[in-house]
């Protein structure tokens, strides 16, 4: 089969090579550099790490309970925010996907509108909402629900709210994309065959929306896990998330090797569930094809 000339073959390889080259330069290479730094020791020099190779940083990370707790807290907060994003995002995406085209584009505009304002500003705005003399507390006091301001600011709850707020669009958009494509007759067919509205949802809508759910959850969970700004601004000094630890180690302690080790660990924690999910999806796709 000499259908493809040598030149064509060459072109093809080149085109396929471009994304791989991109990934190598901007992902694999930095990763390898970070990996190398994580195996070094911190020194007072420039750059602030030695040329030695040891697993000391990782051993330190694994033995210090504080890091384990911080990783765990990050996982719990990110997971909780992901779940709330899903609970809020699904009905919103569903509503948008089922509305008339004119209303739909308006609603989608509302979803992406916050991106026009700096992320940092929006988190600052939450500080204004949540602090002891903020809008929320004042409103509750004015309504007579409470008579002392609630301590919301500088708690894990504030981080949780901040994460949910910031990442909600990343849940809604992929969900909307899958729901919008779904054939409405499928749900009608289920109803016609005797399924109640609830049963039709779980039998038809939910399984068909799964790719969107998975994409949305990953898009929320992964960045939420490494989030730095939100825990820094909304969380208390002891309410550490791993992104903040990473920043502090790097910036204040100038312990580049330890910071790198923290980053590598974070990557490992994130990569394992993603690989698992992708395997799952690949297997499903295989059994469907």
């Amino acid at each position, binding site marked *: 089969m000499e259908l493809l000339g040598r030149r064509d073959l060459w072109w093809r390889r080149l085109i396929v090579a471009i994304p791989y080259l991109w990934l190598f330069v901007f992902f694999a290479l930095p990763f390898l550099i970070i990996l190398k730094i994580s195996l070094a020791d911190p020194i007072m020099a420039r750059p602030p790490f030695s040329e030695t190779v040891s697993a000391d940083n990782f051993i330190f990370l694994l033995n210090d309970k504080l890091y384990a707790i911080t990783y765990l807290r990050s996982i719990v907060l990110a997971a909780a925010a992901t779940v709330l994003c899903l609970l809020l995002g699904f009905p919103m995406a569903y509503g948008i996907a089922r509305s008339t085209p004119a209303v739909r584009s308006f609603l989608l505009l509302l979803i992406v509108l916050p991106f026009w304002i700096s992320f940092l500003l929006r988190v600052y705005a939450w500080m204004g909402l949540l602090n002891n003399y903020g809008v929320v507390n004042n409103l509750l006091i004015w309504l007579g629900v409470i008579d002392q301001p609630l301590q919301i600011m500088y708690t894990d709850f504030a981080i949780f709210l901040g994460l949910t707020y910031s990442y909600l669009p990343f849940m809604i958009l992929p969900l909307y994309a899958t729901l919008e494509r779904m054939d409405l007759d*499928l749900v009608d067919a*289920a109803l016609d*065959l005797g399924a109640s509205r609830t049963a039709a949802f779980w*039998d038809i809508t939910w399984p068909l929306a799964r790719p969107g759910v998975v994409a949305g959850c990953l898009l929320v969970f992964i960045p939420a896990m490494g989030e730095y700004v939100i825990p820094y601004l909304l969380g208390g000094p002891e309410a550490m998330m791993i992104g903040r630890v990473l920043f502090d180690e790097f910036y204040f302690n100038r312990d580049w090797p330890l910071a790198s080790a923290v980053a590598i660990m974070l990557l490992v924690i994130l990569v394992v569930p993603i690989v698992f999910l992708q395997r799952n999806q690949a297997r499903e796709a295989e059994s469907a094809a």
Partner: protein
Amino acid sequence: MSQPDPSFIRLQGISKHFGDFVAVDNVDLDIGRGELFSILGGSGCGKTTLLRMLAGFETPTAGRIEIDGVDVTTVPPYERPVNMMFQSYAVFPHMSVEKNIAYGLRKERAPAAQIAKRVDEMLELVQLADFRRRKPVQLSGGQQQRVALARALIKRPKVLLLDEPLAALDKKLREHTQFELMNIQDELGITFVVVTHDQEEAMTLSSRIAVMHKGRFLQVGKPKEIYEYPCNRFVADFIGTINTFEGTVTAVDDDGIAIESTDAGTSITALGQHDVAVGKPACIAVRPEKVFIGRDEPSDSSDIRMRGVVDDLAYLGNLSLYRVRLASGKIILVSQQNRQRSAERYVEWEDEIWVSWRPRSSIVLVEDR
């Protein structure tokens, strides 16, 4: 077959409005038990909307729907003794063929053994036993359509609604499936309501047809009645091809009417009593196959006769089609069966010929209401 019951499905004054738009306009209809009833009409005339009201997906703006003596106007779809085969098939993409087919019984919480047995029967019926574990994406269009049919039939509904069941199939498969559908309907004795925009399909399939236009029924009747006695111009035009002649009524009596047609340049007669008056405009029509064509002047003086020139002709094997230009310039269509094999065709291009038909073949068309 089940006992006759002329109003098994009964629609009374059914209307459906979408905002200002009237999709279905005050429809009355009775469908008998075990009928294969077709709703025929052009795109957007409200066929699907009517079917969706029967299935329970839309609530009528006004009117009442009864099935087997029970008022189901506000009954939700999952509680109606009705199943539907969708225009898009709507086969569940994430379920295998057998899961799709079993779905209705599952929701009924039927015993597993019974489900398995009925699924096997259905797979047999639609000849998909070898494909039971496949997913819909692995099936052809025709096979998906059969899955949809089996899935809709497994609960043995009193009524099966089919929305353009054959639209997505190629001609050969469509003809084959038409007869399959008729066999299945005959075997199971289920009442079928079929929506279609294909008049040939409606003619082949149905015991009765309703011709729908702009949300209204123009005529309801047996295929033969609708074809031979269309009640107005739209129906006549929609079902098959027809030649129409405009004219002024010159005579009306108990046996028939006559019009003087400027189109034809002659007088045209029709039998039967009609609601027309002398001096008023009227329209008489005739089907192409009712018209005879020949070189010689027809002998029977009661026939309607005209002279013309063969403008075009097409030999289709069993039929020959002619386009004949009359002296007035009007084109009429004639189709003739090729009963005898002749070395040369009897009538050729540009031949001067006579066309004629019997008065009883004339159809008097009233204006569209």
